[in-house]
C-alpha cells in the first residue's frame, strides 16, 4: 500500500497495465520523453521503450484516429489529450468512429481504447484549459465516460477502462491532481464502470456530483451538518452510462435532489439527472430537483474564474434552498 496523489496514481496504474499487458500502448503530445505536461507518464518511456510509450506530433484528430486503427489491429491504445479543451479537433473521430465502429460493423470490429485527459477547471489556467465535457461526450451513444474523484477510484476505474473492450473516455480532474494523497493498494483491482458511489448517507436531500466538486461538496456537507441537514452525497463516477438505480433509490428516500457540476447549465449534465429523477422518483419529490451548475458563459480566465467555480459555501446555500423549499 502506497500513499499517492491522483497524478502519481495515474502514472502507477499505467505502469501496472503496461507491465501486465503487452498490447497496451501509451501516447500523446509530450507523453514520451517529457512524461506529460502534468507528469502522468513520467518514466514510462524509459521503462517500456519508445514503441510502447511515445510522443506524437501535435494533432488531436490523428491521435484519436490512429488509436482507432491501433485498436482495430490488436492493441489497447491509451491516448492522452493534453487538456480536455483540445479534444475538439478530435471530435469527428470520436463521434463518427470511436463511438460507432462496433455498431457500424455489427460487432465485427470493436475498439478497446482509452482517451484520457485532464478535465475541468479551477487551476488558474489559460483559456481552453478548464473545459467540462460531460454533456458533449455523455450525449454520444457508444461511449463510456468516467471520471474519478480520488486516487483509489482512479486506479480501479482506469484499470477497468483499459481492460474494457469498448472505448472509454477517462476524465481526470486536474484541480485535484496533487490536492491530496490517499492509500492506494499496489495490487490489481478494478472498480466497475457505471456505478456511482454513495459517499455519505443522509435522509434530507440527495446531492450528486463528480470530479473535483466532490471534495467541495463534502465540505458543503459539513456546513449543512452543522445546521442539522442530513444530505446524502453521491459521487457519480461514471458520467455515461449513468447509474440511475443508485440515484433514484436515494431520491426515493430523501425526496429532494440537487446536482452540482462545473459544466454550463443549459443542456448540461444536470438536466439529464433531473430528467432521470423525474422518470424514476416523481411521486417522491418534495421540492423541484435542482441544478447548481456553471453559468452559461465561457469559463473565465484566471482573474474571473472564482466567479464561475463554486465553493462549499455556495453549494451549501443552494442545497439549503432545496431543503427548505
Amino acid at each position, binding site marked *: 500500500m502506497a500513499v499517492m496523489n491522483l497524478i502519481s496514481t495515474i502514472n502507477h496504474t499505467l505502469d501496472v497495465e503496461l507491465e501486465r499487458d503487452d498490447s497496451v500502448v501509451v501516447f500523446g503530445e509530450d507523453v514520451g520523453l517529457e512524461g506529460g505536461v502534468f507528469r502522468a507518464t513520467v518514466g514510462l518511456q524509459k521503462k517500456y521503450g519508445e514503441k510502447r510509450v511515445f510522443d506524437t506530433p501535435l*494533432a488531436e484528430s490523428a491521435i484519436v484516429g*490512429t*488509436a482507432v486503427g491501433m*485498436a482495430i489491429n*490488436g492493441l489497447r491504445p491509451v491516448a492522452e489529450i493534453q487538456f480536455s479543451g483540445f479534444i475538439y479537433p478530435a471530435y469527428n473521430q470520436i463521434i463518427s468512429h470511436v463511438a460507432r465502429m*462496433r455498431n457500424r460493423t455489427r460487432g465485427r470490429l470493436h475498439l478497446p481504447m482509452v482517451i484520457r485527459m485532464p478535465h475541468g477547471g479551477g487551476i488558474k489556467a489559460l483559456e481552453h484549459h478548464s473545459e467540462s465535457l460531460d454533456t458533449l461526450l455523455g450525449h454520444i451513444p457508444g461511449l463510456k465516460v468516467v471520471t474519478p474523484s480520488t486516487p483509489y477510484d482512479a486506479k480501479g476505474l482506469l484499470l477497468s477502462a483499459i481492460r474494457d473492450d469498448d472505448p472509454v473516455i477517462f476524465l481526470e480532474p486536474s484541480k485535484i491532481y496533487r490536492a491530496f494523497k490517499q492509500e492506494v493498494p499496489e495490487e490489481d483491482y478494478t472498480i466497475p464502470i457505471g456505478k456511482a458511489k454513495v459517499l455519505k448517507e443522509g435522509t434530507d436531500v440527495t446531492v450528486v456530483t463528480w470530479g473535483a466538486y466532490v471534495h467541495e461538496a463534502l465540505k458543503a456537507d459539513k456546513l449543512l451538518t452543522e445546521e442539522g441537514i442530513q444530505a446524502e452525497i453521491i459521487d457519480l463516477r461514471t458520467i455515461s452510462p449513468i447509474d440511475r438505480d443508485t440515484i433514484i433509490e436515494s431520491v426515493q428516500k430523501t425526496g429532494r435532489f440537487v446536482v452540482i457540476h462545473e459544466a454550463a447549465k443549459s443542456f448540461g449534465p444536470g438536466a439529464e439527472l433531473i430528467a432521470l429523477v423525474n422518470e424514476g422518483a416523481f411521486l417522491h419529490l418534495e421540492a423541484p430537483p435542482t441544478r447548481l451548475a456553471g453559468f452559461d458563459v465561457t469559463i473565465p480566465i484566471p482573474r474571473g474564474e472564482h466567479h464561475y467555480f463554486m465553493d462549499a459555501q455556495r453549494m451549501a446555500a443552494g442545497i439549503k434552498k432545496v431543503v427548505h423549499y
Partner: protein
Amino acid sequence: MLTEQYGPLQKKMFQIMDETGAILSPDLVPDRSEEEWLQSYKLMLKTRSADNKALQLQRQGRMLTYAPNTGQEAAQVGSAAAMEKGDWLVPAFRELGAWLSRGVDLERVYLYWYGNELGSQFPEDVRMLPISVPIASQLQHAVGVAMASNIKGESDVTVAYVGDGGTSIGDFSEALNFAGVFNAPVVFIIQNNQYAISVSRQKQTKAETLVQKAVAAGIPGILVDGNDLMAMYAATKEAIERARRGEGPTLIEAYTYRLGAHTTSDDPTKYREDEEVETWRDKDPVKRMKAYLIGKGVWSEEEDAKLIEEYDEEALEVFRKVEASGETKLEDIFKYHFREMPPHLQEQYEEYVQYLEEVE
C-alpha cells in the same frame, strides 16, 4: 525506384500501357502471368457489372443511394492486386473493385448500399475496415493499423484510399504526417477522379498535382495513370514492398475519372461538359485492358460478352437475395453498441418492443 522517376515533383505520369492497350515500356511490365492479368481484368468487369446493376436497380426504386465506380476500375483492382494475404484495406467508399479483389462478397456490398449495417460485418478473414463516410477520416485509422503492425513486429502493410476532394481535409495531412513520423507501413492511394461531387479538381487545390502533397510530410509519392491497370499494379507493388521492408509510407495519386454520377442522387451534367466525359471514355480502363488481352490471344470478344452477361445475372441474383432480406432486425440497432447492453439501453429496447406488441 519508380518514385524517383515519377516522384511528386517530376510532373510526369507513370504509364505502362497506352489508351489502346499497347505497351509503352515493355521493361516496366510487372512480372505477372497473362492469367493473372486476366483475373484482374475479370474483377474489373465484375465491378462494372455490379455497378451497372446497382444503377439500374436504383432507377427502378429498388436500390437506395449508390456511388458508382465506372471508369475507376483499374485504379481499384490494380492497387488491390498488389496486396498480400495479411495486408489491410482501408476504404473510403468508392473502391468496389478493390473490395471485390480482397474477397469481400458482393452480397455484403449490396446489403450496405441497400441500407443495412450487416453489409459491413465482413468475415474474420477479410482484413478490411468498413466504408468511411466522413471524408478522409479513415486515413488516420489506416496509419494506426499500420503503426500497430510495426509495434507488434508484424509485416502486414495497410493500403488506404481517399478521393481528390479528401486531400483538402485536415485529416489527410495529419495522417500523412503521422505516417512519416512513425514510418508506418501504409500506402495512401488518392483516386483523383477529377471531382468531389460537383467541385472540380482545379477548385480543390492550387497544387499542380495532388501527389505533391507528399512533400509536406516528407514521404515519397508517385503520379500514376489510374486507368492503366499495369501501372497501378506496379506502383502499388513497389510502395507495398518498400513499406514491408520497413521503409515507410508512400502516396500514390491515381489519375482517373468518374464516368458516372457522384452518386445516384446527383446530375453531373449540371457541373461538367459531355465533351470532357467523352474524352475520358476513350481512356476507359476496361476497354484498354480488354484490347491488351485480346491482343495477347488470351481473351476474345465472345468470352467477354458472355462473362459480362454472367456477371450481370450474378449481380441481379445477389441483389434479389439482399432485397429479400427485408428490414433491419430491431434488436440489431440496440445490441451492438457495447459488448454488453447497458441497463438504460436494454430498457429502451424492451419498452419499444412492448409498444410494438401493444399496437399490433
